[in-house]
Structure formats: structure tokens, C-alpha cells
């Protein structure tokens, strides 16, 4: 049975697609899965850097499409973790260097020998996005709890549904529990209420991501920190396991006041 092709996308840039892709690839490979991550952000490749594999690139996805090399020659094996490989994007071309059909064919080919193919999508809703979702069995939307990111996610969810790839599942990245508790950040429930799609995971904001990227060693390699646990939980959910969401991101304990507020909010009703 071929593996699952999952596209990780967002609409808005800078919400952590690449970090999420790298960490999920590592977390799945640590579960003994065969995983290939594809960077489709042609012209702005970065997945190689976040994964710490930039020194090993010889060929890239555009070389494969143009027949300059075999697909297997362009794949970079991660020496730290068996079962993990990367198909890098080209840094010199642009999004039109490949077509959605070509990406779909490559991902199907990879799915034949992998349990998971993770496609890191570029930001935006244009050609690059079309390239990234064309071959997807499932789409994962990454957002942060900020208005601009949620708005973009809403738009991209519409486009995913229009492409027949819907509804997709949501990862809320960079939740800051302190800000949520202070009432200065949308919480998980708020975001889900707006976007009305299934939640795949919630990832806390953590400075360790900066360090991990500096070192080229995704956080998911460690097990201890809450952020690593968040990535591993998502990996387990992708494997079909029913893992409860980390309690730290839930609402503060319900008081009479918050119960009353919730009651009135329910009465008003929100969009969708």
C-alpha cells in the first residue's frame, strides 16, 4: 500500500510551516516510519536548513523534473535518523519551474516507497500553493493564533475545499499560554470556532525552536520539552492514534464567571 502524501500549507508566510514539516518528518521517522519531506518553495528553499541538511544538496526537485538526474539521486538521506529523507527545492528557479502534475507524479512515486511524504508548501495562494496541494492525500493547515494568520487560513481552507482536497486538519502553532491566560491571545477554541475544521495539534511558542534551527537539529529529536511532545503527539495522530491534546493549552479552570460568559457567548452565535 502506498504511503500518505500530506501537504503542509498556511496561506500566510512566517507561521511555521517549514518548522512544522521538519519536526513532523523527524517525529514520524522516530516512530519507525519511512518519511520523505519535499520542499516545494522553489526559489526560497529553507527546509534543508531547518533540517540541517543544506551541505548535502547536489540535485533538487527542478533537476528531477528536467531529467538532469534520477529522483533517487536528488534525495538526501538524514544520517542521524534512518528512514528520513529530503527532496530539496531549487534555490535558483521560480515556482513556474515545476507544474502541479509534476509534483503530483513525484510525490506518488515517493509514496510507493515511503509511509509518509510531507510536502512543505510555499506561502501564498498562487502557483506554488497549487504545486504543493496537487498530489496531496491530506492537507494540514498551519496557523498561529493571530488575526492575520487565521484570516489567511480561512481563505486557504476555502481553496483547499475548492480543489477537492478538503476539509484538511489544523495545527495551531506558537500558542503562548501566558498571553492566552491574560486574554490577549485567541485560544484553541476560538480559532477552531472561526475556522470550523478538525484540530490536529497545538504547538506552544518556544525559544528552543530558534536554537534548534541554528543547530540544524529539529526539536522533535529531543523528547523532553513540551514543544517536542506536541510534535510527537501530532505524529501519533497522523498514525491514527487517539492522543488527547496537551492540558496546558486548555482554558483556565471554569469559574462561575467564565461559565456565565460562555453562556452569553453561546447565545450570540458566531460565524459557521
Amino acid at each position, binding site marked *: 500500500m502506498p504511503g500518505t502524501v500530506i501537504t503542509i500549507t498556511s496561506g500566510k508566510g512566517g507561521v511555521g510551516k517549514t518548522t512544522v514539516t521538519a519536526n513532523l518528518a523527524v517525529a514520524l521517522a522516530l516512530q519507525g516510519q519511512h518519511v520523505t519531506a519535499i520542499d516545494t518553495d522553489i526559489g526560497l528553499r529553507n527546509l534543508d536548513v531547518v533540517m540541517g541538511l543544506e551541505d548535502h544538496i547536489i540535485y533538487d526537485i527542478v533537476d528531477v523534473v528536467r531529467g538532469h538526474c534520477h529522483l533517487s539521486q536528488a534525495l538526501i538521506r538524514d544520517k542521524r535518523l534512518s528512514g528520513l529523507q529530503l527532496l530539496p527545492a531549487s534555490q535558483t528557479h521560480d515556482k513556474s519551474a515545476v507544474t502541479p502534475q509534476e509534483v503530483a507524479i513525484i510525490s506518488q512515486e515517493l509514496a510507493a516507497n515511503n509511509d509518509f511524504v510531507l510536502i512543505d508548501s510555499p506561502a501564498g495562494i498562487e502557483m506554488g500553493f497549487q504545486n504543493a496541494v496537487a498530489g496531496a492525500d491530506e492537507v494540514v493547515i498551519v496557523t498561529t493564533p493571530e488575526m492575520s494568520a487565521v*484570516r489567511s487560513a480561512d481563505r486557504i481552507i476555502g481553496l483547499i475545499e475548492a480543489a477537492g482536497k478538503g476539509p484538511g486538519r489544523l495545527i495551531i502553532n506558537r500558542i503562548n499560554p501566558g498571553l492566552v491566560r*491574560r*486574554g490577549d491571545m*485567541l485560544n484553541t477554541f476560538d480559532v477552531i470556532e*472561526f475556522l470550523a475544521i478538525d484540530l490536529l495539534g497545538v504547538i506552544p511558542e518556544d525559544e528552543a525552536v530558534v536554537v534548534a534551527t541554528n543547530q540544524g537539529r529539529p526539536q522533535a529529536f529531543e523528547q523532553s520539552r513540551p514543544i517536542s511532545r506536541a510534535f510527537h503527539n501530532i505524529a501519533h495522530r497522523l498514525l491514527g492514534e487517539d492522543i488527547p491534546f496537551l492540558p496546558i493549552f486548555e482554558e483556565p479552570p471554569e469559574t462561575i464567571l467564565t461559565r456565565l460568559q460562555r453562556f452569553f457567548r453561546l447565545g450570540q452565535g458566531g460565524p459557521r
Partner: protein
Amino acid sequence: MEILTRLFRRRRSSKEMAKERLRLILVHDRSGIPPELLHRMKNELITVISKHVRIDHRGININLEHSDGLTRLVADIPIIGARHGTSERPGGTRSR
């Protein structure tokens, strides 16, 4: 007292502002109606209504709303009274 201030503060949290704004933004985005079209419709609605009655321009609230999978144009236009003299039946409501 402390309970009251806490309640008050929570109501004005930036999250609640974000939710309110985002709700409106998403209704507009999902409707696919460009802002200038909505603006034109609002103006035409107001023109038509004010041809027949006097309205309170400060209290006008015409907006898109989204619920149960439907987008609605909801208009709240406060009426001050009948427009005397321009009615098709002059003096129709005058005796009141």
C-alpha cells in the same frame, strides 16, 4: 467589587477585540462581495428609504452577517418619522 473589575477587564481584553474584528472580516471574505459593492448597496438602500421616511443617519447599521451557512445583509435603519411634503399622498399622516 473585585469580581466586577475582573469581569470588566476581561470584557475589554484584546482577544475579545480580535474576535469581534475577525468575525466581521471573515464574513466579508467568505461572502465574496467586494467592499465597494457593499458600500454602493448601502448608499442606494439609504437613498431609497430616505425618499419615503426621515431616518437617523447616525444610527444606521448595515452589514453582512453569517450564520447557519448563510450570508445575510442585515440593515438597521432608525426612522425618525414620515417625510412630509414629498409623500405621494401629501398630508397622509399629518393628523397624527
